[in-house]
Structure formats: C-alpha cells, structure tokens
C-alpha cells in the first residue's frame, strides 16, 4: 500500500512530485533542488526560506501566479499524467 502524504506534493500546484521522481520536494529542511514539471518551481531556490509561515506565503504567491497564467504544464509533454487536471490537482493541497 502506498501512503500518500502531503509532503509528496508540490506545495505550489499540488502535483504528486514523489510519485513522479521518487524524491520529496523537501526532506525536512533539506530541499531536493529539483524542478516541478507541473508549475516549474525549483525546490530550494524560489522557496529557500526556513520559516514555515514565510515559505507558505511564497507558495501562495507562486500559486496565484500559476493560476493567473492559466495553470499551464511547465515541463515536457511526456511527463504530463494522462488526463491531467490542474484544478483537481490543486485539491491535493487542501
């Protein structure tokens, strides 16, 4: 059984980053330096701050921008899940 935890998802767009890459976006306070194929954030770059509230504020801003720009898939088409639904994906963050 695969346990899905909140830490598996991109905190900006809700993409299941762990399922895609086998790595967490952040492992505790250590960023993966990887890039989310869904929204394009690089964990440890745009969100490189260790205060949880401040980091969440950054995610909120990036999420708003991503939504405002049409929730476009950032990465290669072949990495896009079948029937990808960005709106539904955002539900992973609730």
């Amino acid at each position, binding site marked *: 059984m695969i346990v899905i935890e909140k830490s598996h998802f991109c905190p900006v767009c809700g993409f299941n980053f762990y399922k895609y890459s086998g790595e967490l976006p952040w492992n505790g306070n250590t960023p993966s330096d990887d890039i989310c194929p869904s929204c394009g954030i690089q964990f440890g770059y745009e969100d490189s701050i260790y205060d949880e509230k401040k980091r969440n504020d950054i995610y909120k801003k990036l999420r708003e921008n991503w939504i405002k720009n049409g929730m476009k898939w950032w*990465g290669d088409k072949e990495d896009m899940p079948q029937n990808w639904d960005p709106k539904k994906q955002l539900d992973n963050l609730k």
Partner: protein
Amino acid sequence: MAYDVGRIASQYINQGQVNKEEWSALALDAGSMAIPGVVGLGTIRRVGQGLKVADKVADAGKVADKVGDAVNGVSEVKGFGKKLNYHFKKHASEFGTKTKEEYGQKAIDFIKNSDKPGILRKVDPEGVTRVYDPVNNILASYKSDGTIKTFFKPNPVNHPYKTNLEYWNAQKGGGL
C-alpha cells in the same frame, strides 16, 4: 594520486606505525609529489633537517587529505542524468548555452574545478554538496554519487533574499 602519497604518509606518521625519523627520507619525496608548495623540501633534506620535514609532510598530508577529498568527490561527476532537461530549460539562458550538452558540460567543468580558492562549499544533511562561486555568481549541487542536481546563477528576483550571498549563506549544511 599525488594527494594519496601525502595522505598515506600522514596516516602512517599520525598512527605511530613508523617513527618520524624513519619516514623523513621517504616523506620528503612524498611531500614534493603530494603538494606543489612542498617541492623545495629536497633541499632541506640535504641540510639534515629530516625530522622537521617529516612534521611538515604530516601537516601537508592533512591538507592533502582535505583537498583530496574534494578532488575525489568532483572527479566522479556524472552529469545530470534524466533531470538535465528541466535544469537546462530553466537555467540555460543564464549561461548563454544553446544546447543541453553545452549546459551539462559547463556544470561538470564547474564542479570539477570547484576546489579552487574562493569557491564556497557546503554539504547538507542528505549528503548533497553545494558549491558557490561568489565572484561569478554560479551555484551547483551534486549528490555523493556524483550526479549533478542543479547548476544556475542565483538571482534575487527569484529567491527570497536581498543578495545572492545571503541566499548562499541561508543554505543548510556545513563547510568543508
């Protein structure tokens, strides 16, 4: 290889397996091979200061140990693997690189030459090494198996700090 000679000399002397006097003659030659700055040691041998030289070689061996670790780490740089695409897409223009190969090679070259003075280095709790050149504003990270994780030029427009040096200083991990 040259670093290893200094390292072995240091280990044997420090472990007390061979006394300094016995090592002095061999250590002189090892030192000149191991550390370019110790090349003049042969002259000292000729004036009969073998013991002092052995001490110097032991110290040089310790330095070589640190440098050697860094060099050994970077000598195994493998490239990005399948993650090259996205890092190229995001950061290639920062280096003026047009192809994935060009960008990937620049990253490899940067890491392989990152043992130079002035290049800052940290290893995070996951064993990922980050290196930063503050003069040219270039940052790279790589795993302990030599796989590159990222290679880019930080920009305060994208990260939450006023300067790129502040961004670097905020990175977790200890320096070597």
